Every structure is written in structure tokens, then in C-alpha cells.
């Protein structure tokens, strides 16, 4: 998923092309890695069913001759561009072409290796495929970093990527690839898991914002209490997630057992309740800390002027201090959202649902495809959230100050 890295916050200054005697250093490294993956490692693994370890196949073995040739030719061109061309848009175009060809090669291999109407055999992406994908992704990342796109362009690129991937999946191009086979069997459960995953991450975030924002304002106003509050939240942050889920099971279970109302609204020792509470607790520190930092950034002269002109404390807070602190607060919210999307996966262990159900189910059954069915959408979700919120933060900061 390194393909998406470029969509994150762009660096303060784009790195200049590092060329030594006309050869791009990063291009050389990526070409080496990609070529090694292609030549030395299996492109796909062919398995008789979803559990048995498969036998591996290289790219040449799995594609029809002309297809393999086309594929090799394209990748060789990409390598040449990566090595010799400094023009960033051209490098990006080459990387994208390489990515499309690699993806199509995977789909082609799966189609070629799967006997007609056979739903048992699995053709899974192999180490060579992943390495090639990673090096092409890095090439695209680097090209986009050099182009320094604004927030709008980055969101557009994300939408383009999601749209293309979605279209390819909807058209059934990858239907014979192992992960999509797994999806076909689990379609209903996947939809449920997606809903749970999004609800758990957004729900805990929403609750955390409601509590953490006022807490941050309070810490800003009462600097004496600030170290205490922040270190308490810091301690929560250090508890490993599984341990925290475990710690919460006992009190929430007891609550459900003794308070009928709590049980009636769905609070139990396992399930969504401890997951939401734990994620909520993890979310507090970044939002409180960033709210404090954001408010500290507002010039005291601005606040004094607001009060001196007859704004009430509330008006000053709402229309001056919080507005000016917003980019920093949103950065905290971005951290929490991305963190939560990842952590919800672990919540599956205590029956919280979400994509983690597939990950842990897959680990239990030694079915790698099922693990990927949970892992890939989690990563896509986290990256999309990061890109969107980063773009929003940058947009807000670009408007003055």
C-alpha cells in the first residue's frame, strides 16, 4: 500500500532529483528491488485449495507468451524512465503504467491458472508481486513528492485511485485472485464488518472529541492542572490495546450484570462496548494535547484585543481562539482517526466486529487470503482518512494566518 504514501502530507521541501552521471539514485535502487522481485521470487502461488501451501510460479510461467512479453517490455521501459528521466510527471506516468500492468498481470495469471468453473483452487499474489508493487508504488510516491501537489490535487488523486480500484473490482477483473475468491464467499460478512469498522472508529472519535475538546480548553485555562491531566492520559496511552480491552471486560461485565439499564443499551463485558470505551480512552490524549498546543499558538495580543473590544469569554473562545487553533486540533483528530481505524482491528478479539474478524479468523484457519481480506481494506481506509484530513488541515492553514 506504499502506493498511497505520496498522498500524505507533503514534505516541507521537495527533494531535488539526485542524479549521478545521469542515473537517478532512487530509480536505480527501485529498479534493482523490482527486478530482484520479478526474477528471483515467485509472482503468484498456486494452491489446490485455500489452506494448503501452494507451489510458486514466476511471471513468465503464468502468462501467455505475448502477455509476458508485453509485461516485460512495459516494466523495462518503466525501469529506463526511473533510471534516466528527471521529469516528474513522466516518472509518475511510467510508475502508474507499471502498476496497472502489474495488477493486470496478476489478474491474467489468476485467470490462466484457474480451470474453468473451478471454485476450489486459489491463485494468490506472491512475494515477487508484492515487491514489484512496492517498488512501483515508491516510484510513484517519489514522483508526486517532486511535483508538490496542493491539497485539492492530492484528494483528487486519492479519488482517482479509489475509483479505478473500485471499477476494476466491480468489473470482476480480479475475481479469480485468491483474496476476491475469499470476498465472494464472505460478501455479506464483509459489508457488516465494513459498517462496524467505520462505526466503531468514527463513534469513538466523536465521543472523544466531545470530551477532549472541552478538556483541552480547560487545561489551557488552568495551566496548573495541565501536567496532571496530560500525564494521566499518557499513562492510558501506554497500556497495550489488548490489555486495555481485557481490563475493561471486568467492570463493564459487572455493570451489565448489576444495572439492567446498562445491559439494555447494549453494554457488555465483550463486544462493541469495551472496544468503544478503549478507543475513546486512546483518543483523548492526542486531541487534548493538540487542543492545548493549538490554543497556545494563538497570540495573547489577539485574545486580549478580542476581550478588550467587548467579546465575552465564550465569544472569544468560539470565534477567535478555537478558529485559530483549528488546524492543530484537526491534526490531533487525524492522528486519532487513523489510529482508531487500525486499533478497531484488534477489537475483533473481544467480539467488537470490524475487519479484524477476518484477520483473526484467517490467522486461526491459517488462511492468508482471509487475513488479506481484512487487512487490505483497513489500510485503504486508514490512508484515505489520513489523506482527507491532511488535505483539510493544509487547506485551513493556507487560509491565513
Amino acid at each position: 500500500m506504499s502506493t498511497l504514501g505520496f498522498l500524505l502530507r507533503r514534505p516541507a521541501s521537495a527533494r531535488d532529483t539526485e542524479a549521478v552521471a545521469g542515473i537517478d539514485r532512487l530509480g536505480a535502487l527501485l529498479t534493482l528491488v523490482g527486478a530482484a522481485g520479478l526474477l528471483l521470487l515467485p509472482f503468484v502461488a498456486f494452491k489446490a485449495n485455500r489452506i494448503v501451501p501452494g507451489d510458486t510460479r514466476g511471471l513468465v510461467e503464468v502468462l501467455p507468451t505475448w502477455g509476458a512479453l508485453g509485461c516485460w517490455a512495459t516494466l523495462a521501459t518503466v525501469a529506463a524512465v526511473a533510471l534516466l528521466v528527471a521529469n516528474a510527471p513522466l516518472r509518475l506516468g511510467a510508475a502508474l503504467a507499471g502498476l496497472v500492468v502489474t495488477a493486470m498481470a496478476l489478474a491474467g495469471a489468476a485467470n490462466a491458472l484457474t480451470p474453468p468453473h473451478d471454485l476450489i483452487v486459489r491463485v494468490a499474489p506472491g512475494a515477487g508481486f508484492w515487491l514489484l508493487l512496492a517498488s512501483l508504488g515508491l516510484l510513484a510516491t517519489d514522483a508526486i513528492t517532486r511535483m508538490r501537489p496542493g491539497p485539492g490535487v492530492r484528494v483528487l488523486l486519492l479519488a482517482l485511485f479509489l475509483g479505478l480500484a473500485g471499477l476494476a473490482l466491480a468489473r470482476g477483473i480480479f475475481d479469480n485472485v485468491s483474496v476476491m475468491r475469499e470476498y465472494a464467499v464472505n460478501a455479506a460478512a464483509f459489508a457488516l464488518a465494513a459498517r462496524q469498522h467505520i462505526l466503531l472508529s468514527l463513534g469513538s472519535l466523536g465521543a472523544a472529541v466531545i470530551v477532549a475538546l472541552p478538556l483541552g480548553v480547560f487545561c489551557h485555562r488552568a495551566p496548573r492542572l495541565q501536567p496532571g491531566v496530560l500525564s494521566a492520559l499518557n499513562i492510558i496511552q501506554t497500556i497495550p490495546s489488548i490489555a486495555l480491552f481485557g481490563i475493561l471486560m471486568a467492570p463493564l461485565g459487572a455493570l451489565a450484570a448489576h444495572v439492567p439499564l446498562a445491559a439494555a443499551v447494549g453494554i457488555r463485558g465483550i463486544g462493541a462496548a469495551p472496544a468503544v470505551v478503549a478507543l475513546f480512552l486512546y483518543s483523548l490524549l492526542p486531541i487534548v494535547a493538540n487542543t492545548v498546543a493549538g490554543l497556545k499558538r494563538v497570540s495573547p495580543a489577539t485574545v486580549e484585543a478580542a476581550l478588550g473590544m467587548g467579546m465575552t469569554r465564550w465569544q472569544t473562545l468560539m470565534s477567535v481562539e478555537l478558529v485559530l487553533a483549528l488546524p492543530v486540533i484537526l491534526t490531533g483528530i487525524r492522528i486519532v482517526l487513523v489510529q482508531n481505524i487500525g486499533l478497531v482491528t484488534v477489537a475483533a478479539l473481544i467480539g467488537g466486529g470490524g475487519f479484524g474478524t477476518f484477520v483473526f479468523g484467517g490467522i486461526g484457519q491459517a488462511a492468508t487470503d482471509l487475513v488479506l481480506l481484512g487487512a487490505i481494506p483497513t489500510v485503504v481506509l486508514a490512508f484515505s482518512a489520513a489523506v482527507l484530513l491532511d488535505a483539510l488541515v493544509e487547506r485551513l492553514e493556507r487560509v491565513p494566518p
Partner: protein
Amino acid sequence: MIVIESLTKRYESMTAVDDVSMVVERNSITVVVGTSGSGKSTLLRMINRLIEPTSGRVLIDGRDTESEAGHVLRRRIGYVIQGHGLFPHRTVAENIGTVPRLLGWEESRIRTRTAQLLGALQLDPGQYSEKYPHQLSGGQQQRVGVARALAAEPAVLLMDEPFGALDPIIREKAQDDLLDIQRKFGTTIVLVTHDIDEAFRLGDRVAVMSAGRLIQYDRPEVLVTRPADALVARMTGSAERAMRLLSLTTAGEAALPFSACEAAADGVVVPTSASLREVLSELLWRGSECATVLDADGTPCGRLTVASIMARGRPS
């Protein structure tokens, strides 16, 4: 008129303002001058109740400032601080419209008032209304800060080191602008500064504070000729007190009835607005004994001699 009665602010360990009483006349500029820690800013901020006094009271036009909520009171009082404190996320026009908006003025009235103020402060409304503060120079930001403070037509304007962040040349221009504005709008201004030259330049009356106490409050020439104590004498600069005195009188005020200066082939001419200090300096430079005073139209209206200027440089 602002009446300050026995105003005191005590903190746990120290007394910031100690039993200060003074009267600020309408339509005048009163400058409070003192070193840092003298309590001058605290005194200013107790007038608009950004700081609540420990004891004593403030009356503005006969009305106790405690008789209404602090934020309501502050909407009637202009306030300018060092570094202007403009809202960085709002345009110049939005900044200026802050208090009128708080008071619920109609948008059309706010727009008219904003344009009028920008014009009065030599900022073209068409060019500057939609700019953000960071797009302006320091002097322009300071002027917008003044415009914002005057937006709701306050009778009283409080200024805390308003020119402190400006470089000397811009500062002098800003001080002149303030005098113009005070004349134009007839606002009662209380200004706090640590700069005695600024105090003498702007103040109709100057209050000297030290360690929370009001040491002397009088017309600037009295501060020079009859300083209340050694501190005031030192502040007003005993070595150059004659010059300071001369700087308080304009050529127009001191001019003798007009008759042509003798041997005035390349005679020294000065405008009525020049201070006697400036006139004397010019005479010394040119090695001349006599200057012709010209009025705004450029017609001679009086004359100044070195002797007549010297007579003004002594306590009368």
C-alpha cells in the same frame, strides 16, 4: 470625562496600582508614562475593566463603570494595544467591523463606517478591505488597529503602547495621524507609554507613575518647569529641559507681530506648526537671528527672533 477615584489593584504579593485618583478631560489626550512595572497598564485596563480593581471606582461621563457588565462596557470604549492584536483569520474590513457587529449594527452601516475609517487613516478601502492583516506593513496594521478601535464611535479610546512595535520614522507619522484623528473625531484618549518624548508630543496632560503611585499629573510644561520629585525631573531630562519646553510651543503661538526681518535676503522661513525647538535649531544652523513665520497659505504672519525664543525656554 473620566473620573478615577482612589483606584487600587492589589495582588497577593504586591500592589500594582496604589490609590490613584485623576480626572481625564473630554476631547483631550492624556498620556500615562512610567517605567515597566509602574502600574500604568494595569491602571489603563482597570478603566475598561479588563482588570477588576481591588478598590476605588471609575466614572465615565458620570456613570460608574461597575453599573453594567464588563463586556458591554468595553464595547463602548475603544482599545488599542501594542502589536495591534488584529484577528489574523479575518479581513481588514471584518476586523474593523468587529465591535459594530457585536452591537448589532446593520451591514450597510458597518460598510459605510469601515470605508470612512479606512479613508480617514489613508488606506484606500477598495485596495485594503479584503486584505488579511499579514498582507499589510507594520504601520498599516497599526492603523487598522486604530480604525477597529474607533469603529463603533466610542467616546473614549484607550491605547496601551500603541506605537511600541513601530520603527521611529513610522512612529512619528503614526503619532501625527493620531493627533489628526483626535481632532477629527473629538475622542477622549488615554494613552500609556514608557517613552517620555511620545508623552510630550501627544499629551495635553501627562501623568507620571512609579511603583503603582501617581507621582505627578499636569500639563507637560509644568512637568518640565516644576517637577514634583527627582524622578520626574530625571524623566523630563534636566539637562535638556529648556529644549523640551521649547518643543511644547509652536511658532504660530509664539510669533511676534509681523515686520520684515533685518538682512533677510535668504531669510529663514518656518510654518506655524513648527515647534520653537525646531525653529531655534534651524536658526542656529543657518546662523540667522530672525525667522519669518508663514501661515498655511504661505503668507507671512509673524516673526521669531532668537531672543524671543530664548525667553520661552525659561520657566515663567
